[in-house]
């Protein structure tokens, strides 16, 4: 039968549920008893498959939100008096304020540097084009533009690909996962922040079809995670403040404040930022958090506003609340009537369809990239090529366009005359030869008749494909502004054709440009509540809230019918075990027994050091939580669950050599305190760096003081939605499944729950893979 259980006299009581291995690592023999309940693993199971989106990666762990209420924690709480708790609360507010200020400053830095460098680049190219227009040799200008673009993007891509790959993309999917509870490696490190800021500057100045707003959210989150710990592990400096907050629970709260501050700095939308954090991290929300996050967002936008006002020379003008400023939408000039609402809904449908097309194209492209372009040098070359092609496309469009318009004041910073008459300028250049933010603003606010429909149409088409190609490259870049620009362009086209059809000029194309931008953005990212409020705040007009909400809802409904949102799609392609808000609807018949992982490696309350070291060093399985069961004192007692201990805690214990024999011999100078665990957080040393001698392996370790004495458990017959709700709402990392005698039967972790998904044909199960 079960040879290794021969030591346990009560083994006959275990039948099919005896998948309990205590302190032994041999493989469970499954063939005998469990015939009627087990199927053989199919032999034709393919072991190596090309990457697809129906996989979950093993490298992602959960964050430890659940507080380990061991004896050390209870002692600390007894020691802290009420005044100290007040101090902790005040410290939280101070940290949120600092997060807001620093995020605002980083946003200012990015904005100013981008403005300066982009201005320099455009000036150089413009002078070159002006010089060569008469003399001939415009191909040199094209080469110059392409080379400038390529070189800047090359630097930007090299730092991302070789130094910190997690800084690629906009960072919003990674922060979504972090707030969901997944520990993405390196996502909130200082190095990531540096690479991200430099990367986004180089990408935008390099002329790629990208925006700089998305990366602000990631930057805000990193700043929050860094400040709240009161030390820098990368720079090896400990400021010895905020030690209470060195836990995943506290860090997560501050990261949501940081993400909100990032949104607020990017769009000038503080309430939108709060709602963004709420939408992503709703499972752990509490009211105090809302107030603090709002504080951080407000401080962030105020800091950005004042610093930029001082920089532009009109201090206290306070007219730049965000990195992107949509301009003033006056009610008199741009009002809408009730008859236009159906038109807006139609635009929402168009936005949804176009967004689904964008996402589908990007999906195939990203799949190709993951499968074939996975070496860093290839990724850098790809980014350079995209930059060069962007420049070439822009140049060819400008060259072939015969649309000349007289200049309207100082609307365009770098007007290109090219082959137009004197005093007139190429209008395709105003679209392509500009940073995307300025193009969006001019599409919203330029008077009717500024744009030629043909120019706009060609621009929309080219930019759509460029933006789709660019997202997913190994550069730091966002997708908000390109989507807004595509939508504003076809929205304005819509408005122009509408006024042409009705024969009157009553349709102000700027208003339709705004609705088109909202529709396209909603169709691509599928965010609803936060995006509505962000757009409402960015246009500083509450009356536009209603049509924007309708447009976004329509775009989401239509888009969801075809394909997922862009960020969710990328999360799936990265095989992250993301838990949605609820369990899949048809899964009530699955019980905890089918979901759980079994057998579970348990530890006894007093365990031999050698056993513990062997279990931790086992390379075949990377367990992080171990149920602690009672030592068998006599034959009648069952090995019931007594607590849960984490790998990180065991490592700290091994490092400090907290052995029973040493305590007896009073070799231990002082008792271990909670501070020792917090000091080791978050980068706990791996087990390979802990040296245990042969004698020490025979010592015993008492886990009673350090384990979590009340872990959350769930009976075997609990349904999947019930397990899911408990796991998700509490942000657990391990959930122990027990039988009716409180014996450990299995363990539910994030990967066990995340593999059930509602697919197109019903409930489907994802496989786990090594990535």
């Amino acid at each position, binding site marked *: 039968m079960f040879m290794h259980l021969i030591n346990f006299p009560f083994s006959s009581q275990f039948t099919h549920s005896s*998948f309990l291995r205590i302190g032994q690592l041999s493989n*469970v023999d499954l063939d005998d008893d469990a015939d009627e*309940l*087990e*199927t053989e693993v199919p032999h034709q199971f*393919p*072991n*190596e*498959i*090309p*990457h697809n989106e129906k*996989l979950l990666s093993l490298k992602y762990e959960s964050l430890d939100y659940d507080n380990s209420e061991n004896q050390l924690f209870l002692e600390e709480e007894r020691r802290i008096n009420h005044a100290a708790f007040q101090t902790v609360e005040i410290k939280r507010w101070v940290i949120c304020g600092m997060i807001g200020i620093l995020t605002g400053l980083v946003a200012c830095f990015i904005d100013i540097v981008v403005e300066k460098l982009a201005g320099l680049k455009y000036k150089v190219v413009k002078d070159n084009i002006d010089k*060569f*227009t*008469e003399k*001939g040799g*415009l*191909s040199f200008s*094209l080469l110059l533009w*392409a080379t400038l673009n390529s070189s800047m993007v090359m630097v930007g891509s090299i730092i991302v690909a070789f130094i910190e790959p997690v800084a690629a993309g906009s960072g919003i999917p990674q922060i979504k996962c972090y707030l969901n509870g997944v520990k993405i490696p390196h996502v909130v490190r200082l190095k990531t922040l540096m690479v991200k800021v430099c990367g986004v500057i180089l990408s935008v100045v390099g002329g790629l079809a990208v925006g700089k707003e998305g990366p602000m959210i990631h930057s805000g989150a990193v700043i929050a995670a860094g400040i709240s710990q009161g030390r820098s592990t990368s720079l090896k400096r400990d400021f010895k403040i905020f030690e209470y907050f060195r836990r995943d629970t506290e860090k997560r709260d501050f990261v949501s404040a940081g993400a909100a501050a990032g949104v607020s700095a990017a769009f000038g939308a503080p309430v939108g930022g709060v709602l963004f954090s709420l939408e992503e991290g709703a499972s752990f929300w509490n009211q105090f958090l809302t107030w603090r996050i709002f504080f951080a967002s407000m401080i962030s936008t105020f800091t950005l506003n004042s610093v930029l006002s001082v920089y532009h020379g009109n201090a206290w003008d306070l007219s730049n609340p965000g990195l992107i400023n949509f301009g003033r939408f006056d009610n008199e000039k741009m009002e809408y009537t009730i008859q236009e609402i159906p038109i807006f809904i139609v635009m929402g449908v168009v936005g949804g369809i176009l967004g689904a097309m964008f996402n589908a194209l990007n999906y195939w492209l990203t799949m*190709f990239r*993951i*499968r*074939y*372009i*996975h*070496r860093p040098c*290839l990724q850098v*070359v790809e980014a350079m*090529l995209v930059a*060069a*092609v962007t420049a*070439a496309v822009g*140049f*060819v469009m400008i060259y072939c366009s015969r649309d000349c318009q007289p200049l309207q004041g100082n609307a365009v910073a770098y007007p290109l005359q090219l*082959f*137009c*008459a*004197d*005093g*007139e300028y190429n209008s395709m250049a105003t679209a392509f030869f500009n940073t995307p933010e300025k193009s969006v603003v001019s599409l919203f606010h330029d008077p009717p008749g500024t744009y030629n429909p043909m120019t706009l149409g060609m621009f929309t088409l080219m930019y759509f494909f460029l933006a789709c190609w660019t997202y997913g490259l190994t550069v730091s870049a966002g997708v908000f502004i390109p989507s807004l620009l595509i939508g504003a362009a076809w929205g304005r086209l819509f408005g122009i054709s509408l006024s042409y059809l009705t024969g009157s000029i009553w349709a102000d194309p700027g208003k339709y440009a705004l609705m088109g931008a909202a529709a396209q953005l909603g169709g691509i990212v599928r965010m609803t509540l936060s995006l509505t409020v962000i757009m409402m705040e960015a246009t500083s007009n509450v009356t536009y809230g209603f049509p924007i909400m309708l447009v976004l809802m329509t775009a989401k409904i239509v888009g969801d019918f075809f394909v997922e949102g862009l960020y969710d799609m990328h999360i799936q392609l990265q095989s992250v075990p993301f838990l949605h808000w609820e369990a899949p609807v048809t*899964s009530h*018949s*699955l019980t905890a*027994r*089918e979901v*759980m*992982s*079994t*057998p579970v490696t348990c530890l006894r309350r007093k365990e031999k050091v050698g056993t513990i070291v062997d279990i931790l060093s086992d390379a075949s399985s990377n367990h992080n939580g171990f149920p602690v069961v009672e030592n068998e004192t006599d034959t009648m007692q069952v090995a019931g669950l007594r607590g849960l201990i984490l790998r990180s805690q065991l490592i700290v214990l091994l490092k400090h050599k907290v052995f029973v024999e040493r305590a007896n011999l009073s070799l231990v100078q002082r008792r271990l305190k909670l501070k020792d665990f917090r000091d080791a957080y978050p980068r706990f040393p791996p087990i390979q760096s802990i040296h245990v001698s042969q004698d020490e392996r025979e010592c015993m370790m008492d886990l009673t003081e350090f384990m979590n004495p009340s872990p959350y458990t769930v009976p075997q017959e609990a349904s999947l939605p019930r397990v899911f709700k408990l796991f998700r709402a509490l942000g657990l990392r391990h959930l122990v499944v027990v039988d009716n005698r409180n014996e450990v039967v*299995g363990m539910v972790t994030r990967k066990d729950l995340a593999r059930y998904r509602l*697919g197109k044909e*019903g*409930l*489907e*199960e994802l*496989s*786990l*893979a*090594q990535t």
Partner: protein
Amino acid sequence: GLFRAVTEQLDNITRAVGNSSKSYNCAKSLLMSDRLQIVVVLSEFFNKTWEEANCANCLKNSSEGLSNATIEFLDLFNKTLMCFEHNLQGQAISLVASNYTEVCRNCNVTYKKLNTLYTEMQRESEHGESEHSKHLCIDVEDAMNITRRLWSRTFNCSVPCSDTVPVIAVSSFILFLPVVFYLSSFLHSKQKKRILFLPKRFQSNASLVNIQEKYS
């Protein structure tokens, strides 16, 4: 001159508010006698037009005569127009595009000098503080517009579209590079495979749940 006289008179009227109530009544009866308040409206109009036309830009600081730059500009402008007339002698300027190559060739230098002077004047005025002082005075701007329209539209002397072949060649080359890159990475790179991990689970024979496992 005229404008200054008008402003002076109005100032006299409005400033004549001394301690005596008689002068105040005089101002009141002139300025606010009826609903239309025509005097005030007209004076506002004159002031606004003067500001928007930025007439102050053409005049010297003390408002006594034209500034040096304006004089230079008008001089060049006259020279350009004379050059046009000179080269067109005998030909009537028709709206149909005809052969004006002589004009283009001979007057090129003068026109370019005028253009450069105008751009310089524009650049200098950009350092002004208010919105209006960013433009030059309206007389100069109108003169420039007329010249430009003559040059580009009527005489058709602007730069023709050149360089088509090299531009097409270079851009096609650049557009072709990604195709080569993707094809070569598709053919040469090893496709990234994922090693499946089979966890140990408690599997039930009777599938009460409609689960579909898909392996691609």
